[in-house]
């Protein structure tokens, strides 16, 4: 969690400049990332998960009217894997495990993309304001950030989700409220650091406007650690989200892995392992994949912590 937040600012080579230069640098990063076999494994898992999510309406018949709800067959409860029509079996409530896993990947993708998107945006705005304007604004914003950081994240998300009531939207909201803080801190730290660099000074000397400098030089160069963190968070958000769902904060019948594990939890003691094992494994693989890729990215982007 705050592992990254604790890092001193990371110094990286400037990525601003003509598009060609940026592309070349990007290409170089990709090549380096791909050199690590473990990272490649992570990438493969991610690609598979994404494909599964994207093809969900094609490989399953979507449940009407809301495909994110598990279809239930009340005449086929607790069917083991291999049952015709239910290749991975059914839950105690007749939910098709395979459908839950496939649409659960969509749910996870939605969850992580929305939360990461929203939090990076908010974090960037707040962090930029604080880091770039400095002074009183910075002082104030950082106190707010400190307050948010004072509450352990799962507890915070749990409390928010609980108060808003069980629903998937509320889980997204809760996680967004919790996660933006990290990014604000990272961005601020980076900006504070980069602000002092020569090339910013030189840009200022040339007479660029403040905003221009920010958009052209400062921001692009702040994004390296954000990228690493965001990749890691793509995994951890699903993990935390599933935990909230498991505790019972997702909406009823949602096709979500945590919900499935919780639905299958009861049966596991009597050998009905499938309903919780498969989705649990999916959560694990999802988090693992993003951790591996995030790790690999960090190795490449953040030479200071080489070979972590």
């Amino acid at each position, binding site marked *: 969690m705050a592992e990254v937040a604790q890092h001193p600012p990371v110094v990286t080579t400037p990525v601003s400049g003509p598009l060609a230069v940026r592309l070349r640098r990007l290409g170089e990063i990709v090549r380096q990332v791909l050199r690590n076999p473990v990272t490649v494994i992570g990438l493969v898992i991610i690609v598979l998960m994404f494909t599964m999510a994207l093809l969900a309406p094609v490989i399953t018949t979507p*449940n*009407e*009217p*809301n495909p994110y*709800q598990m*279809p*239930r067959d*009340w*005449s086929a*409860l*607790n069917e083991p894997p291999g049952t015709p029509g239910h290749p991975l079996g059914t839950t*105690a*409530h*007749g939910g098709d495990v395979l459908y839950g896993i496939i649409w659960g990947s969509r749910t996870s993708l939605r969850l992580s993309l929305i939360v990461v998107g929203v939090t990076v945006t908010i974090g960037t705005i707040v962090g930029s304001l604080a880091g770039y304007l400095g002074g009183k604004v910075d002082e104030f914003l950082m106190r707010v950030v400190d307050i948010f950081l004072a509450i352990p994240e799962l507890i915070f998300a749990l409390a928010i989700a*609980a108060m808003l*009531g*069980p*629903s998937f939207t509320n889980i997204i909201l809760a996680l967004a409220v919790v996660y933006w803080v990290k990014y604000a801190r990272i961005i601020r730290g980076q900006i504070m650091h980069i602000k002092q660099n020569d090339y910013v000074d030189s840009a200022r000397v040339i007479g660029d406007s403040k905003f221009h400098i920010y958009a052209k030089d400062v921001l692009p160069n702040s994004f390296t650690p954000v990228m690493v963190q965001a990749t890691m968070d793509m995994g951890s958000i699903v993990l935390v989200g599933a935990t909230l769902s498991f505790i*019972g904060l997702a*909406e*009823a*019948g949602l096709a979500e892995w945590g919900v499935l594990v919780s639905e299958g*939890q*009861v*049966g*596991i*003691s*009597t050998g*009905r392992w499938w309903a919780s094992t498969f989705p649990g494994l999916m959560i694990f693989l999802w988090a693992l994949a993003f951790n591996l890729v995030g790790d690999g990215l960090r190795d490449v982007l953040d030479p200071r912590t080489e070979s972590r």
Partner: protein
Amino acid sequence: MDTRRRTPQWSRLLVVVALLAVACTSGGTTETTGEDGEAPTTTGGEGEAPATTEGGDEGGEGSGDVFVHAADDEATTVDPAQVEPGEGGETIITQVYERLIEVGPDGPDLVPGLATEVPTIDNGLISEDGLTYTFPIREGVVFHDGTELTAEDVKYSWDRAMTMDLPEGNAGLLADIVAETNVVDDLTFEVTLSEPSASFLNAVVTASVASIVSQDAVEANGGVVAGEVNEFLTANPVGTGAYELTAWNRGENFQLGVFEDYWGTPANIDVRIDIAPDTDTRILGLRAGEYDMMEIDPSLVPDLEGAEGVEIYSGEFLLEPIHIGFNTRFEEGSLPPEDTIGPDFFQDPLIRRAFNLTFDYEGFIAGALGGMGGTVPHYFPQGMLGYSEDYPVYEQDLAAAQALFEEAGVWDEGFTVSVIAEEGNLFEVAALVLRDSMAALNPAFEIRVLAQAEAQFDEAHASDPVPYAMWVKNSDPFADPDALMNAYIHPDGEWGTVHGMREMYQDPDAIAGLIDEAGTELDTDARLALYEELAPMLYDDPMWIIAGNETALNAHRDTVTGFVMNPLWPRPSVKFAFYDK
């Protein structure tokens, strides 16, 4: 506030550690650290708590000699005047307190409790006008605190509940019907009703709120204050039951000890009620032999069926059908924004009938209830007085439903309506079944299932008006149809008012008249005739979707002997005094 406020134990840890570090003296020091730091509650006060045994190892008789029941939630209170019907505290109250008369182990028959006879008109203990009931009190009964039971205690207990009139409690049950309580002599108690009641004995005298508490114990610990909770009684029951509460480790367990001076057949074995909210742990515990018994619902049967050493008992139906309510008494726009219906929607009997015809009863009963349940006619649960198998029961009939929806003019445009349910239980499942059924009939019919935390559900549920058009829960476990009719069917009754049933019924006055008449009719046959007239009217003009009724289930180790269960007893419908192992 807790009268015996204790220092947080972790702060004491520091002191102890410091003491230990400084004076590394003889081993006996631990005993001086004051009250054993143990159970937050012990019946007899500080002294009775398990004493510190120096060696410690002899102390445990092992759980082999204790009957362990796994409960899924903890009581909030064990004070009869404070407990809500159906709440966990009733489990304890049933064991440690007694009522004047009790529901016997077999079926709905009443048996004498602290009164030596069940009053009837025939034995003269009920007056001809049906207003005065006389209870001869049993002699030689002692409370757990050693005082002797008199009619004074009985009057005190009833009056106490009515005076305190706690909003969370069930005092209204007494107050609504009782006009006067009298002590005739030491061993005779008399009560006068405000109107004749067919259900007084079944529904009121046997209820938890009518439990008899020790006057001396109450007076010694705060007495009776109107509208205020008695902190002592909340956690320290002083009754006459076969068990006394020896310890209540909050969040962990209740310990019930055999009461040696019990007037009747004494209980056989000490009981511990472990609080294990997680279903899986309860099931695994029972399978592992760690628990002797647990309450189960039908969905858990597959987990326990065939398990070694586990027996599943299934008996009568519970008297608490799971029903889905139609609310029409809400402000336009006060529903969740996704909802597209207005207050008049459910006023249309065609739609209510159509909903009743769409619900997948078979799926719910065979699936969610695992076959352990049955359908219920409007509104007479099987096993209760007034039930007849001849009454019409709704079954799924999609064609008929479609016709009705078309007739009501909602088929083409469809609708969205939210149904609230407590999160994570059968009610949520019933809501899911409704949603699936409706979506299968017509994808334009969207039922949104909103699962909510208990407190939020309760808050929404107790709001006036209720801000949702539909909700799912079970009915309260009434022991008499009159209570059920008044609460759920009567246009001016509890839910009748909340839901606006007067506007929903085609002929509200006819229904109200029949219910009122049956409620004061002391002759059972005459009463049944009235209900027979009522049943088809309720079928034609349904106020609920009755999803189904669960079978009373229980799972226990096969070593348990003397097992009996009666759904008319409060959850988990058992009396431990009958058991042994």
